[in-house]
């Protein structure tokens, strides 16, 4: 189902969707967040091979924070217009679960690295509450062994740096939620801090969903409950899950009952959400500053330097290329991928303009793979290749006319045959002409010119 579903439209007349997002993404640092283990959980050959005393939570293991992961988190915050807390720290979040060997997750509670900021969408901005850094948990696979229901645990993912981006409840439609997620993924990929592979769980989506009645909206009140839908690993599933909740909660509210505050999972096969667990309150997590990890004090100059290092962001690049070079949406979508490629294309486009070639044409050639996207190659060589290709595809009319004239003069017998009705000799003339003007020449153009001259003889 989607936003066009008539039953949902009926609901939204009575209720407004109030939705906030929580997005987790694994940072692609070389090593884990608090230890020197390899951070590459999806491509490990075997389970439990990227571990050490720290990420297995063994007594005496001392976590030390990964400098790059912190820098990337703050840069992401700067890219999204967040305020950066100059004083920050890590806290322990306690809960018992087999994916958490220490019995607590190292996370950030009251002083995250970043607060505020916003993600732009075509439906309006979605304000951010915060961005914090934490460690990922071990991966659990639920299975049945010898008839017994068990969970199998792989710690290769335990301790991988994980950013959590929390939004305000500004999302007003399933489509906006998906666009918000896509935009976040684009920025993280563009900054080259996360691959955001959704299928592998490198980026995970959660939506906090509730419905506001017309009376609540008039009084400016928020709903008195929220339902958290977790473990969504595609943008389409996110849209479906929210649509499903809008309908389900609408039905519950119609009967005069408040939907239960709970965590639900999403089943993409059945397109339904289901109760997962009763939510723990913040007090249950017994947050406390992690005594193993001293706090951080950043200098304003450091933050400024990181801000300065940020590349121009994808939205701005698209606007600029559209305004300056007239690139179409398809080209913009395909070409604006990461900062390195943008810098390369900027130098290619600049040189093209200098040589009197429209950057728009270069972009089209890159999109239809006539030219290779390869930041390793020099702009000069790219344009040389382009010129070779285009020079051959349309031949100078004067040059072509002279060439064919010469061929016809040299082969009077063949001309006579043509005039006697043996039109197949055209193929012979074509072959002769193409050999002179080049094999990549526009054959249609060559054929038309031969026929024109033959008729005039």
């Amino acid at each position, binding site marked *: 189902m989607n936003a066009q579903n008539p039953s949902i439209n009926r609901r939204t007349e009575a209720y407004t969707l109030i939705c906030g997002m929580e997005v987790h993404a694994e940072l692609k640092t070389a*090593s884990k967040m608090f230890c020197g283990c*390899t951070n590459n959980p999806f491509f490990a050959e075997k*389970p439990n091979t990227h571990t050490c005393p720290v990420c297995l939570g063994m007594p005496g293991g001392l976590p030390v*924070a990964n*400098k790059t992961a912190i820098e990337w988190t703050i840069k992401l915050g700067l890219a999204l217009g967040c305020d950066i807390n100059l004083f920050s720290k890590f806290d322990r979040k306690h809960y018992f679960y087999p994916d958490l060997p220490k019995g607590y997750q190292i996370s950030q509670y009251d002083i995250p690295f970043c607060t505020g900021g916003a993600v732009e969408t075509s439906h309006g901005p979605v304000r951010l509450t915060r961005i914090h850094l934490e460690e990922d948990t071990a991966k659990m696979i639920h299975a049945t062994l010898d008839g017994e229901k068990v969970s199998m645990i792989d710690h290769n993912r335990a301790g991988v740096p994980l950013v959590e981006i929390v939004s305000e409840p500004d999302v007003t439609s399933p489509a906006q939620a998906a666009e918000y997620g896509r935009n976040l993924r684009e920025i993280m990929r563009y900054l080259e801090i996360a691959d955001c592979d959704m299928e592998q769980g490198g980026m995970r989506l959660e939506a906090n969903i509730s419905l506001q009645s017309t009376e609540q909206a008039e009084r400016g009140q928020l709903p008195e409950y929220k339902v958290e839908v977790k473990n969504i690993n595609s943008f389409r599933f996110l849209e479906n899950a929210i649509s499903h909740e809008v309908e389900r909660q609408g039905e519950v509210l119609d009967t005069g009952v408040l939907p239960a505050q709970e965590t639900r999972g999403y089943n993409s096969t059945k397109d339904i959400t289901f109760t997962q667990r009763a939510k723990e309150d913040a007090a249950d997590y017994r947050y406390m500053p992690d005594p193993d990890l*001293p706090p951080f004090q950043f200098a304003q100059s450091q933050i400024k330097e990181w801000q300065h290092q940020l590349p121009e962001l994808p939205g701005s690049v698209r606007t600029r290329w559209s305004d300056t070079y007239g690139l179409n949406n398809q080209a913009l979508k395909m070409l604006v991928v990461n900062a390195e490629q943008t810098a390369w294309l900027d130098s290619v486009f600049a040189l093209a303009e200098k040589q009197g070639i429209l950057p728009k044409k270069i972009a089209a050639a890159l999109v239809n793979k006539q030219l290779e996207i390869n930041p390793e190659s020099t702009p000069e060589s790219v344009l040389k290749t382009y010129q070779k290709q285009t020079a051959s595809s349309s031949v100078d009319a004067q040059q072509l006319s002279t060439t064919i004239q010469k061929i016809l003069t040299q082969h009077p017998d063949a001309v006579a045959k043509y005039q006697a009705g043996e039109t197949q000799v055209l193929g012979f003339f074509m072959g002769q002409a193409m050999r002179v003007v080049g094999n990549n020449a526009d054959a249609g153009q060559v054929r038309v010119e031969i026929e024109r001259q033959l008729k005039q003889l």
Partner: protein
Amino acid sequence: MKRTDTQHIATLAHIPINNDQDKDLTAAFNETLETIKTLQEVKVGGVEPTHQVTGLENVYREDEVHKDTMFTQDQALKNAHRTYQGFIVVPRILEK
């Protein structure tokens, strides 16, 4: 503390307890809390909260892999109660 609090903590810890146990545990918790209560008599108005006691700040490591501190799979699984094909195996908690 009430018996319902004890039951709540037991649920969070995934530890099954019976009626007699929660009665005993509640009494024990209350005894401990009574002792700890003494601390609340200390006047702490105007005292900055202590996040840590070492005085250290900005302790980082460079983003480098240290193969030498990593375990082999055998070493990682050595203390596990039960394993299967390189995984640590535990009873399932989430029931769908």
